Structures are given as C-alpha cells and as structure tokens.
C-alpha cells in the first residue's frame, strides 16, 4: 500500500504547495498568458502600446510559405534526431548491460554531453563538421564538394541533427541502462533456460519491459528537439542556408528579436506550444497503449 501524508488542516497542505505554485505561475502561466495576449495584438516596435487585431497575426503566419517550411524542417529535425539519439543510446545501453565491468565509468562519461550547454557543443561541432578543416575536410578531399553545410541545406540539417543527437544520446543512455538493470537477472536466465538466444531475449523480454522508459524518452526527446535545438541552430547555421534549418524555435527568435515582429513571434510561440501539446497528447493516446507497466 502507498503511504500518504495527511494533514489535519487543509491550510498546512496549501502552505506546502504555495512555493511550487508561485514558481509555476511566475515562470510558466504568466509568460504564457502574456504571449497569448501579445499574439492577439499588434505591438509597436519602439513602444507606444498595443493595438488589438484578433487573429490577424495567426492568419498572416499561416499563409506564409516560409512558416510552413519552418514547420516541416522542425518535424524532420524532431523525427530524425529523436530516432537517432534513442536508437544509439538503446544499443549502447543494451551492450553495457551485458558486460557490467566498467559500466559505472561509461555512465559518468556518457552523461557529460548532456551537461554541456548547447552553444558550447554547437561550437565544437561547427569545428568538427567544418568543410574546410577538421574531420569532414578529409572526406571532402576524397570526394570534392561532398560536404558543405554552408551551401547545402541537407548538409546543414544533418549537422544540427548530429550535434543534437550527440547531446541526447548520453541522456537517453542513462535512462535505458537504468531500465535494463531494473529487469531482474533471473528473468533473463529463465529465458535462457527456455532456449532463447541473446537477440531473441532482447526482443521478447528486455524490450517489452523497458517500454515505459522508451515512451518517457520519446516524449522528452521530441519535446526537447522542438525547444532545446535553439542554441545549436543559432551557433551552427543561424537558420541557413536559405532557411533550410530555420526551425520553429529559431524563427520565433529571429522574427521577434531581429525582425522586431514581437506580435508575430508571440503568435508563433503559441503555435509551437500547441503543436507540442498535440504531439504529446497523440503519444499518450496512441503509443502508451503499447507500453507494459509492471
């Protein structure tokens, strides 16, 4: 049975909840509410008050081809980087789980990338993936013109996907490894006695038992790929070339603070928020059904 703390007076319970409520209100509901308000008005770039315009901001954004391009770029980025980060982490964790010697070290080493700020790691990848120097320069030497993220939109998209995935592989690995190790050893042994080989055991026993973790990471990775990608895009490609990597979160920033279209940017952030909410609801509705909770 779960133990619950009960308070004799409901006021004490409220008092305990107040700090968290204040934080959530100050840093989430209030700014979000402000953004909703701004998105429905036209704000003067140099101050001087707002003019109520209703849904005009949304109409103009959604009729803009650049914005639809940004949405599809974001979806491509989210799908590929989440898939890559989760797949690599899953393989690494499955291998680490089998051979436990030194797994503590891997665990520490692999969590580090997650601790690195996005701009810093983007800087590192900018050097690594620079077409004229670094690793890719070697490839370019063999196949001239093979790689140039400054000119080729697909190369630029690949660069930011690699950088983002690199950061999240470590994060995902920790969760996957913990999930694997939470599976009782005797289950694996029982499956071995039942005649199941390593690969078969993975698909029949381990994989179904870590589905709660896979689901959790899927939600987190997709959400983060819409939000945490900003620093990487800003440093590595600045949305270019030709808007190929102008992800939604970056477009909000560039339209708002470079283009000084505060109201349009506010409307875009509302759309991004709705998109993430819809995606998350979708995942809970349709994917969570396949999750086995123990």
């Amino acid at each position: 049975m779960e133990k619950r703390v009960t308070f004799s007076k409901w006021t004490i319970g409220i008092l305990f909840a107040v700090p968290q409520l204040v934080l959530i209100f100050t840093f989430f509901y209030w700014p979000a509410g402000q953004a909703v308000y701004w998105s429905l008005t036209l704000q003067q770039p140099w101050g001087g008050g707002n003019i109520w315009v209703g849904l005009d901001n949304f109409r103009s954004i959604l009729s803009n081809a650049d914005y639809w391009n940004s949405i599809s770029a974001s979806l491509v980025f989210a799908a590929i980087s989440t898939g890559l980060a989760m797949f690599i982490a899953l393989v690494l964790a499955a291998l680490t789980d089998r051979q436990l010697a030194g797994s503590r070290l891997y665990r520490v080493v692999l969590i580090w990338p997650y601790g690195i700020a996005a701009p810093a790691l983007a800087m590192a990848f900018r050097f690594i993936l620079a077409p004229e120097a670094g690793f890719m320069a070697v490839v370019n030497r063999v196949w001239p013109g093979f790689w140039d993220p400054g000119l080729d939109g697909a190369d630029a998209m690949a660069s930011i996907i690699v950088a983002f995935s690199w950061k999240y592989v470590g994060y995902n690995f920790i969760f996957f490894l913990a999930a694997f190790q939470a599976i009782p050893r005797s289950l694996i042994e029982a499956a071995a006695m039942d005649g199941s080989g390593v690969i078969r055991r993975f698909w029949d026993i381990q994989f179904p038992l870590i589905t709660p973790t896979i689901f959790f990471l899927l939600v987190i990775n997709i959400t983060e790929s819409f939000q945490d990608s900003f620093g990487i895009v800003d440093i590595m490609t600045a949305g270019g070339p030709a808007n190929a990597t102008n992800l939604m979160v970056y477009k909000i920033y560039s339209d708002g603070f470079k283009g000084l279209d505060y109201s349009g940017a506010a409307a875009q952030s509302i759309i991004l928020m709705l998109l993430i909410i819809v995606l998350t609801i979708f995942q809970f509705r349709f994917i969570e059904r396949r999750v086995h909770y123990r």
Partner: protein
Amino acid sequence: MASITIRDVKKSYAKMQVVHGVDLDIRSGEFVVILGPSGCGKSTLLRMIAGLEDISGGEIAIDGTVVNKLEPRERGCAMVFQNYALYPHMSVAQNIGYSLKVAGVPAAERQLRIQAVARTLELEQLLDRRPMALSGGQRQRVAMGRAMIREPKVFLFDEPLSNLDAKLRVQMRSEIRKLHRRLNATSVFVTHDQVEAMTLADRLVVMNGGRVEQVGTPGEIYTRPASRFVATFVGAPAMNILEGTVDLDGLSLLGGSRRLTIARAGLPVGTKVAMGVRPEAVRLVAPGTAGALKATVDLVEELGAGRVIYVDLDGAPFSVMTSEAVHPEPGSAVGLKLSPDDMHFFSSETGTRLDVFKASVPEPAL
C-alpha cells in the same frame, strides 16, 4: 531422463573460490536434494549444471555428454527459480508456452500442450491472467508448468519454496514429490531447509563451505552423519555436542567433570574428541538415578506433540526432546540417560566421524 556426472567441479569469482572440487553422481530418475547453509555454494553448483555460471574447473556431464561449453538451451535442463522469474508482461499461458514458441512449435500444438500442463497443475482458470494477478502458490505452479512443458531431461529447483508461507510450502512439497513420481525425471533440488530436504530427497547431498560433506539417503545422513557439521546441521533441535579429551581410561568430558569409561581404541592420550547425541535420543529420568547425568532445567519449549527441554550440564547447554507428558519446572534438577548406541564421535580438529569408540563400549559409567 538422464544421469548427471560431476567431476572435481570448481568455481571461483575473481580471487574467491566458492566451490572446491565437488564430485557427485546423480542417477537417472533420481531426486537429489542439495542441502547447506547460505553461501555454501549449493546454488552455484546448480547454476553450473544449468549453464548459467561458467565452470572454473572440472567437468559436468549430462547423459555422458560433457556440457561445460554448452549453452543452457543445449543442455536439456529446466529450472524453477526461487523468485519464480515469471515474465511479467506475458499471460500465464504465454509464460508456460514461451519455450515452445522459441523452439518453433506450431501454435495449435502449443495450445494443446499448455492445456495439458495447466490441467495437471490446476491452472486452467488462470491461463489468461498476468503473473501480477496471481498468489504466491499460483505463481509457483506456473513456474513449475514452465519447466514441465519442455519435458526436460533434468529438472533443477533453486530454493523454489522459500518464498511461500509455511502451509503452502508443505502442500507444494508433496505436489513436487508426486509430480516427480509421475514424471520420473532426474531432479536436483537446492534448499537450506532441512525438513524440505529430508522429505523430498531420494538422496541428500550436504554441502558446507564449497565442499560436499556427505552424500546419502536421508536416513543415513540422520543416523550416521559423516562429520560434526552434518550432525549439527541436520536435525532440529540440533544435536548436542560435548567436548572431551582421551585419557588413559577412556574419554573425559566437560573439562574432566564427567567421565565416559570406554576403550580408546588406539587413539593417543590427549586427542580432542567431540561426543554428540541427538536430543530425541536422550531419556529423561528422575534425578539421582544410577548411571544418569545430573542437570538443571533452563527452559521448556512446548511443541504440542512433544516438548524440548533445555538444560544446563555443568555450564554446557544441552537439549532433550521428549514426547512424554513431563513438565519440569525451570531451575529443577533432572537426570539424563544416554545410550552408547546413540552416541556419535567426531574429531575435534577435523570434524570427521570417528567410529573407533562404538564397538567396544558395553555400558558407559558416567
């Protein structure tokens, strides 16, 4: 059905050796129980037979085939685990049928065999349930079913009853026994519970500290323990042990305050000997009876059918088990009568059994 031959099998982890050269022959169709305290290497030995642990030295053969390098699935053993190890995401039917599915048995035949096993174990009503929704005894039966359905050459049991409550344990014990009588498959059962061991075993293997202390029928183990360890480990309450030293006339016990006049049969004077006698072999008599030991009652434990009387024998603890309706008060004096036929002697140094005293003792003068 298969025989198992274990030759000088050793197991070490890094620097620690946990099994020190075990030799054992298990006959086809035999029910062998490995009994020992925790950490004695009994589970490790079982897991080496199963193929879940590497064998560091020696060899294990099943039906004449050395299996040292074979994968668990190639050995033809089925195992019942202590915590059952049921797959939590599969139904009872899927759990039982998993090995058949892996082996590629067609679904229709699989269903038939699952049904057959479920019928024997009375699990028919539960086939669609998940392990979570089962009681301890039901989970235990599913684990048994999962082992049975493969019709294995060898059944391995790793303390399968220790998670059950006392009543269920007794019930499952007899079910396992009946099942073995019907299937007649070679079975190796590991436990630390001596009642379980005595009741189930055709032959009992007592292990201690990674070595086999004795192999024999439960009767042999009880009546002729091969070492002091076996003598005190098997039997409840434990066998009484009195330390003594061989002198010119025989054996003097309890630091010289009691004497056992027996022929010393070639043992040099000064040899340290431990004399053991089972609590149920001691007779309670009136204090002062000729040839009886005088002791003071410490505590009486009522068992219903009988009682255990803990007494103090010149500072040494001693216990007596009796079914007579005697209820001595704590602190009162009692007499204890021992028969030479019930005495066991062990070397104090090595703990091994000494049979030198027995034959030549007509009646001990104590």
